[in-house]
């Protein structure tokens, strides 16, 4: 049996980085092949070349025995390559059928297409209503739209980029059954992930990328997760250590917080109640788009909250703005680094003024003390090992990991009483992620109360004392994190929603 896809010596350089350096790999028919690597290892660039979005500088691809050089995604699709994107390539204001038609070369008329969508989605256990607006769908449902769009074209090779990052554990199980069914029908799958356990469960072969280079191929069912992790990271991982610490009095409390969705496709918060004690980390899990951004905004003060719903050390602070909350000791770090937690085109010093003005007295009578701001920036850079030419560098020039260390460091060094962080290690390399988690643990040990909102369950299990989950704007009651089973966590996150396992 000849290979479905053979890549040899693929190289792609961007100014300053070599994204892919002489990468080769082979995918067999009916094989689920894992592409494994850290953030920034070059996985995305590699699949973009296969999908025709990026042209390689050197190397060749052979697809189904033929020389393959797609000039654009259309050509790749026509040849039999389909891709499910990590950040979905969907249009919120269009309906499901229109979204699917846009991903097809020769879509049938809308009525026939709608019928086929219903049919295929039932067959693969991914029910979808073709007439719904995509903007109203959950993250899991949106992924189904992408998958159905691919399946309708009978691809020979299906590329999936981090597909489980938006799913509950139960939904992951169902997705895997769908993929098993596809495999049994002879479709090959290129499965991109950095989650080792999933890859061991699902994949037949794994190619590991590190800094753009292929550092090895292995059989994930045989290899241990630890060995693969070390191949991926290239060093032994530092596991954050938890110092024993005590939780004391309640620092922040939400009493039935309800908040209307701020935008057309946002999530409204419904009766969210929680409390967080000094010295503890409360982890809040959940699939993206279930109210994480809204909860962060309600806590940071970007969205005002009705009276009586938000209490800080016994004081009702719902009406206070971000800076008044900062003055009290409630700080936050939103998910989106560029454009929300930091202004991309501004220097690190200016970005220090963004949040540290109040607590670090960076202004006097309304005038900014730039020297003090620069001093504080240097302190953050030094203490949090931010790799940058200096405080005058623009935020957008930093790598994801370094900017995230800067953002978290900027808040931690202001000595918060309560810190709210949303996705503290999203898109960050393993070393920086470990450093950030350690810093959060140390902050809690020092007596601060911390709320960590994250979609990375491993992360939450590693650092939280208690765990709660957001599902469609509702929060489950927090439970102790130690000894929590994956099934229990999945159910808290909403279980499989309306999904049913595929009947093979």
């Amino acid at each position, binding site marked *: 049996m000849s290979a479905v896809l053979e890549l040899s010596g693929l190289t792609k350089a961007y*100014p300053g980085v070599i994204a892919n350096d002489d990468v080769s790999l082979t995918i067999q028919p009916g094989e689920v092949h894992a592409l494994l690597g850290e953030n920034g290892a070059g996985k995305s660039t590699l699949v973009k070349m296969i999908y025709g979005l990026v*042209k*390689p*500088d*050197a190397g060749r691809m052979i697809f189904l025995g033929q020389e393959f*050089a797609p*000039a654009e995604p259309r050509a790749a699709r026509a040849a039999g390559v389909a891709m499910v994107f990590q950040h979905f390539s969907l249009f919120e204001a269009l309906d499901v059928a229109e979204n699917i038609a846009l991903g097809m070369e020769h879509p049938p008329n809308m009525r026939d297409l709608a019928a086929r969508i219903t049919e295929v989605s039932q067959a693969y256990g991914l029910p979808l209503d073709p007439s719904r607006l995509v903007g109203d769908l959950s993250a899991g449902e949106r992924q189904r739209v992408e998958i159905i769009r691919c399946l309708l074209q009978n691809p020979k090779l299906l590329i999936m980029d981090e597909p489980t990052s938006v799913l509950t554990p139960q939904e992951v199980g169902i997705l895997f059954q769908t993929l098993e069914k596809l495999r049994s029908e002879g479709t090959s799958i290129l499965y991109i992930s950095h989650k080792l356990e999933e890859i061991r469960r699902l994949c037949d072969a794994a190619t590991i990328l590190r800094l753009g280079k292929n550092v090895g191929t292995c059989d994930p069912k045989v290899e241990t997760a630890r060995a693969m992790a070390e191949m991926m990271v290239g060093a032994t991982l530092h596991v954050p250590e938890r110092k024993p610490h005590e939780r004391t009095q309640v620092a922040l409390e939400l009493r039935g917080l309800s908040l209307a969705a701020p935008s057309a496709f946002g999530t409204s918060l419904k009766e969210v109640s929680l409390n967080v004690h000094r010295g503890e980390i409360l982890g809040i899990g959940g699939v993206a788009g279930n109210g994480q951004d809204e909860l962060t905004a309600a806590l*940071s*003060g*970007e969205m005002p909250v009705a009276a009586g719903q938000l209490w800080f050390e016994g004081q009702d602070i719902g009406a206070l*703005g*971000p*800076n008044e909350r*900062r003055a009290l000791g409630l700080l*936050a770090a*939103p998910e*989106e680094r560029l*454009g*929300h*937690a*930091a*202004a*991309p*085109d*501004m220097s690190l010093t*200016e970005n220090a*003024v*963004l*949040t540290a*003005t109040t607590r670090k007295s960076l*202004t006097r009578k*309304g*005038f*900014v003390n*730039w020297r003090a701001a620069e001093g504080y920036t240097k302190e953050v850079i030094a203490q949090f090992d931010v790799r940058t030419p200096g405080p005058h*560098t*623009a935020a*957008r*020039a930093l790598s994801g990991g370094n900017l995230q260390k800067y953002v978290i460091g900027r808040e931690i060094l202001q000595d918060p009483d309560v810190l709210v962080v949303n996705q503290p290690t999203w898109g960050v390399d393993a070393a920086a992620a470990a450093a950030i988690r350690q810093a959060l643990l140390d902050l809690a040990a020092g007596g601060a109360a911390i709320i960590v909102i994250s979609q990375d369950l491993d992360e939450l299990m590693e650092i939280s004392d208690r765990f709660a989950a957001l599902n469609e704007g509702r929060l489950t009651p927090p439970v102790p994190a130690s000894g929590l089973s994956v099934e229990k966590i999945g159910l808290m996150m909403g279980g499989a929603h309306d999904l049913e396992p595929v009947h093979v």
Partner: protein
Amino acid sequence: MITLEKRPEPSRFWSWATPVLAVLLTMVAGGAMFAALGKDPVEAIRTIFWDPLFGEFAFYYRGQLLVKAGPLILIAIGLSMGFRAGIWNIGAEGQYIIGAICGAALGLAFYPFDSFIVFPLMVLAGALGGFLWAMIPGILRVKFNTNEILVSLLLVYVAEFILASMALGALKNPDGAGFPGSRNFRSYPSGFNEEIIAGTGLHWGVVAAFIAVIFAYVLFARHQMGFQIKLAGQAPRAARFGGVNPSRLILFCLGMSGALAGLAGLFEVSGPAGQVSIDFNVGYGFTAIIVAFLGRLHPVGILLAGLLLALTYIGGEAAQSSLGLPAAAIQAFQGMLLFFLLAVDVLTNFRFRFGKREVV
């Protein structure tokens, strides 16, 4: 193949060099336009840019330079605050007209009362008029989320009709033998915006423009409000996270630019123009948009850009009389300048890469 590549950081060099490059490119393209109109391009460019400063009649034109640059700078400084924050007040012309009407009306109401207090009161009334006119799009934006671009612009037409009505009606000179237009401030010293140093063109409006430049410089460089303005323009979400109140910012920026435009109108109508007439406004409110961009929204840049655009006005008039160049050619020339500036601006944030990218 040429591709654009985003720079990791905005280039400091190009942010200063692009306006100069744009001016040079405009001279080349403008020269071509003049040639197409049958004029000698070199002579036309020399007449516009050189003669008013160093030519035979420079003594006259140099004075005009400040007269024209004053209102342009004053308005553009106001606009730059909003533009930096992503708040697009493009109706400065209307605020300019209303400021002029309010200030002039107050002055004319005092006529012939003679006191040093009249002119300062007129200045206040002018600023207030422009401020209130700009508050209309401001409040509509804050309360109803109405697009301030369209409202501020549509209000220019409304202001022009009000001006016509005033010049022909309420403010018409009672001793004017039925001619349209108000009483001339030259015949009412208490309300006249006089030249401070004879022959220089320096009147109180120019002084106000210089003060505005310094004020804006300090605001942007050192004050928290200036920081918030810049932040809101570059990253609105980050601004909210940083505690910026968007409504307050919108009202501040629109109010400031309205007040400054109103001031410019008042200084013009009570000085160089002399009276409220149906067409005393000559489009400074629109040209100031070009000044603001050409000056890269920076106070010092605006100062230089204002002087340059004033030069094109004066040089244009000179070319009109000596070469017969149509007045509209200068307007097209100014528009071209903005185009070239926007085009070369790409160099600040991107660099060009030449050569092959495709290896297939």
